[in-house]
């Protein structure tokens, strides 16, 4: 699984999720993204937190739209108009429109999620273009330092506690903060020295390409952006229409080619294996 191909797929997914206001396409994009996520995620990550967050976001979108927009024919509740913003009829149409908005948010987030739940942070840095390779090495190095700094922070905190340090007054925080910062700085300097000793510096650099492009990677990298571009073109030309259920709820218009573009997003789940 090539990180750059996955990044291209993510961008395409986000584009499609946000390009139209139609819940049918959004739902399809969401289903594809969920499939990719479940199929390819790292075994130790749990999707529970993300799912809960998205459900909450969707509920908020529904609530906000229902409470703020009072258009629509099928009201299920009428609040007294005396209430400033919320007064008026709460309609089914507004709720459905809010649901469609939530769907779009969820689809976009889930299209971006694989970048952090499938790839490790360092392999994402690897996916940067060659021109940024040196920057990528620096960022990757910083990422490697973080666990060590966290560990030394715990050690310092324990040792200072044993010497009688209590994190009560603000005045006492330097007893923890200064050693941790100094340790981090010393660690960074040591690492910089090691990097320089191995020849890191200005000047020409080559790239150890362990980025392999298999046929599956190429296919995904071509098909997903093509689908996104086609989708945007259809949108611009009007073949893919927004869905506006006011004043009366109606079925959203569905264009076959648009649906095909959305379904193309499911490709990584079918051709890639973890």
């Amino acid at each position, binding site marked *: 699984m090539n990180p750059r191909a996955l990044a291209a797929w993510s961008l395409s997914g986000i584009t499609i999720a946000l390009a139209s206001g139609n819940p049918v396409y959004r739902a399809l994009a969401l*289903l594809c993204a*969920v*499939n990719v996520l479940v199929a390819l995620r790292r075994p130790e990550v749990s999707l529970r937190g993300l799912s809960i967050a998205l459900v909450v976001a969707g509920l908020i979108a529904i609530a906000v739209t229902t409470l703020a*927009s009072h258009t629509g024919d099928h009201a299920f509740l009428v609040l007294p108009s005396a209430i400033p913003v919320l007064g008026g009829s709460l309609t089914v149409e507004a709720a459905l429109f809010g649901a469609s908005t939530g769907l779009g948010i969820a689809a976009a987030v889930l299209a971006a999620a694989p970048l952090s739940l499938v790839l490790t942070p360092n392999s994402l840095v690897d996916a940067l273009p060659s021109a940024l390779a040196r920057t990528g090495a620096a960022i990757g190095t910083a990422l490697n330092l973080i666990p060590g700094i966290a560990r030394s922070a715990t050690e310092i905190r324990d040792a200072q506690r044993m010497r009688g340090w209590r994190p009560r007054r603000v005045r006492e925080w330097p007893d923890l903060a200064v050693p941790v910062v100094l340790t981090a700085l010393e660690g960074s300097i040591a690492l910089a020295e090691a990097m320089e000793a191995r020849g890191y510096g200005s000047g020409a650099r080559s790239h150890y390409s362990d980025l392999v492009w298999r046929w599956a990677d190429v296919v995904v990298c071509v098909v997903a952006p093509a689908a996104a571009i086609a989708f945007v073109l259809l949108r611009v*030309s009007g073949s893919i229409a927004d869905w506006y259920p006011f004043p*009366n709820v109606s079925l959203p218009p569905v264009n076959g080619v648009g649906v095909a573009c959305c379904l193309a997003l499911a490709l990584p789940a079918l051709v890639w294996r973890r």
Partner: protein
Amino acid sequence: MIRVLLRVVLALPLLGAGMGAVTSVAGSGPATPLCAQAASLHHVGIVVEHGDGQVIRRCVGFDTATATALAVLQASGLEVGISSYGGGLGAAVCQIDNEPATYPPGCFTASGSYWVLFVSRAGGAWATSDLGVSSETVAGGDGIGFRFDPQTGADPPPASPAGTCPASTPPPARTPAASVRPTAAPRASSSTPSAPPSRSAPTPPSATPTAGVLGVATPAASPGAIGSLRRPDSPPGINFGLLLAAVGSGGLLGLLAIRILGRRAV
């Protein structure tokens, strides 16, 4: 044993999607009139005049005292494309019966042509509407007219709405959606006007048949297409998309279930 059951359970969404798609295709046979609320209290006639002069007439029934012009249009069974302004400002009609063939998201084409709304109160003369299509309300016996204005020349009203709606209830018809009781009334075929005896001689408008084998094909002969306010018919061409979407989502859900359950079972 459990795995077999699992597979059966997982196949159901695919089956359901397939069946839904099939009935939606089969249901819209040739010349299917729209859902009829046989006991609709009120009727409003719609006249749509294309830029090239072709006219379509529809009769729409509803039970509420008044209805917005947009609702009536959407219930008429014609293919409609709208663009919303958001925030309760209403919507604009961008496309009726596939004219113009494509339109940009902002609704107004480069040539500047747009659909003009006319209202006729209780059989009276046409008058242009000051309100938008989602704000203008009509009652039983009124008429709504749409004329695609090429922005050249004057603003004449469309053809008269008179006679678009029969005096009494036209025959009920079968719905294209896969629900609803089969009705006893004969289906209006594409060539013979099956007008009930009480109907006055309708003026066959030179309407263009809406394209497509599927869906509502009501060529010139059947003026009595009646729409219900709750179930607009899906115009043709979209059914392929719906079919594809149904099959696709069924497949995706099935795949997802297989992965999740497979992971648990391991």
